[in-house]
């Protein structure tokens, strides 16, 4: 039971020979992820953590079929890497780089949509189903954050994920799947597009979204709830409640323009749709407890 990734997914790693690529490949494997092949142009014949490396995605998947691609390449090469994976028929892609050019973010999202693929990122730590598998960079060994359980988490922020998830775990819960959609203004996949997966996942009892000022992703979640496309309990925590107008708070997507994208507005819209909105990270845990009581799936 998990969303986006599980142990039966076969992963190809683009940029596997880089320092980040090789470091996190090791940890993905250690967690139980099925990594089958790697790609770094010019480095065919090498291996990383026992995983064979090929020049191109086409050559890699011909020898070792993969259904998902994890991309560890710098932002300016990300579009090329995503399109290369799509070209080889891969339909599940995670890309972590921060700083992908805006117009290329549009092209990546449009290409994924046109091919029926899902691209998560950029500017994210990736996706993890604790205790099962991950595509990305999560310190799953920190037990007070990455504890397996039955709460689904979607987030726009890596640093805030640790902060909020620790509160979920402290309240006696654990995580089914955690998906970092990323902090960019044009992410490849949006919160609401993942809700049907969490709805269908029998391992998820409730969903926490970690949002922030700017954009409309939180409003789209409210819309999905209003339309009954998602009806499990949902708790939101939103950063930037007191952020001054017109200032970009860290993430490219975190800015209020022309009065749109305020946390105040998002909070009201979510509440109207039936979501609970936490004012502080700690409250995420207590609101979940209120909604669910003690987590039945908790192994604690």
């Amino acid at each position, binding site marked *: 039971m998990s969303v986006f990734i599980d142990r039966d997914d076969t992963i190809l790693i683009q940029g596997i020979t880089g320092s980040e690529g090789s470091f996190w490949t090791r940890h993905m494997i250690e967690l139980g992820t099925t990594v089958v092949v790697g790609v770094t142009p010019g480095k065919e014949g090498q291996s990383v953590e026992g995983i064979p490396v090929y020049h191109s995605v086409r050559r890699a998947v011909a020898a070792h079929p993969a259904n998902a691609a994890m991309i560890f390449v710098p932002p300016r090469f990300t579009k090329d890497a995503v399109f290369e994976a799509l070209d080889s028929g891969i339909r599940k892609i995670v890309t972590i780089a921060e700083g992908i050019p805006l117009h290329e973010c549009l092209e990546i999202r449009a290409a994924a949509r046109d091919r029926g693929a899902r691209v998560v990122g950029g500017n994210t730590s990736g996706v993890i189903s604790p205790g099962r598998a991950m595509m990305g960079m999560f310190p799953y060994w920190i037990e007070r954050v990455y504890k397996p359980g039955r709460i689904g988490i979607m987030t726009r922020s890596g640093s805030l994920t*640790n902060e909020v998830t620790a509160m979920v775990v402290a309240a006696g819960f654990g995580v089914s799947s955690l998906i970092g959609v990323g902090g960019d203004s044009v992410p490849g996949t949006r919160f609401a597009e993942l809700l049907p997966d969490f709805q269908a996942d029998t391992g998820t009892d409730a969903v926490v979204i970690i949002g922030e000022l700017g954009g409309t992703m939180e409003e789209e979640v409210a819309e999905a709830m209003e339309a009954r496309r998602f009806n499990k309990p949902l708790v939101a925590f939103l950063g930037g409640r007191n952020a001054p107008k017109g200032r970009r708070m860290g993430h490219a997507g975190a800015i209020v323009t022309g009065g749109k994208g305020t946390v105040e507005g998002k909070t009201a819209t979510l509440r109207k749709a039936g979501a609970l909105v936490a004012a502080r990270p700690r409250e995420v845990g207590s609101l979940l407890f209120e909604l669910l009581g003690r987590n039945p799936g908790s192994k604690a």
Partner: protein
Amino acid sequence: MKLHEHEAKEVFAKAGIPVPRSFLALDAAAASQAATTIGFPCVLKSQVLMGGRGKAGLIRLVKDAPAAQEAALELFASPHGVHKLLVEEAVAIEREIYLSITVDPVAAEAVVLACAQGGVEIEELAATAPEKIFRESVSLSEGFLPFRARNLCMSLGLSGDLAKQAAAILDALWKCFRANDAELVEINPLFVTKSGTLIAGDGKLLIDDSSLFRQAGREAGRDYYDSDAAFEAAKEGIPYLQFDGDISLMCAGAGLTTVVYDLIVDEGGTVANYLEFGGPNYRKAVRAMELCLKNDPKVILIVTFGTIARADVMAEGITDAIARLKPKCPIIPCIRGTGEDKAVEMLRAAGLEPLFDTEEAVRKAVALAKGGYR
């Protein structure tokens, strides 16, 4: 990166969009001379990045040389930090139009917006009279095809030669949008002159920061930042925002730093600066603390929950920074994540009291700042 009006208009003019005749003046004498050259009436436009320049009195219509001289002196002396004036011919206006191109993150397309009523605050209009705004969604792979320009011209009620001019401007504006990796290009207002020509009254161009590496010659100088510290931080690649409160933030991660800001305000505290030293900057603790100390803060609050940015490496940097910079204000560390046990040891050895709870750290920082320490 937001360009100044004169830079945006330069880009527009090169793409073939008509702009008023103008000179850029760096002092009042040059402005007066430019005004005389252009002829009267003309307009003195302060080149600052803030919105609402007209309402703030930073744009002046002048009728003769003495008035130009006087207005220029006043504008250069304004508290808004005016260093450049665009001296522009005054155009005889029949009416005004609005045009812009921006991105639609949901549809993954660009969107061209047009409105027959220029000079408006478009977000306001979108809220009150959305039917007055016409839009064409454009996929980047398809590009801006002529039929979209024709559609918009018909919606705007333009025909004949005006429609031809508008279509050419829309096409040029699209090219500016794509070639400059823009988040936004906007002509507001686009003047329809009494002689039946179109000319860009204002110009706005926001370049996507992640694309600056391939925008040759575009480097944000000091006048793109609101403080020296913000400019210096940007040169180091350290995300920084200047405020004028008591508590300096030295945190890791955009989301967490933003929430720490929220919590401080909730507790009744004030922020001196927002600063992220996580991500690629987690070895830059000394530089980060130096920037914080420029604000003479009452407290430095350090909150991290690092993944790749290891807690022990950050703690090492912080103790090193304290040894080198000897800050007089108290420092509150709340450093968690990979390597936190080692981090705690190092912080204690340096005489700091590490905390593990963000809210507790914030409360302590606010209490110390209010206690009038020092």
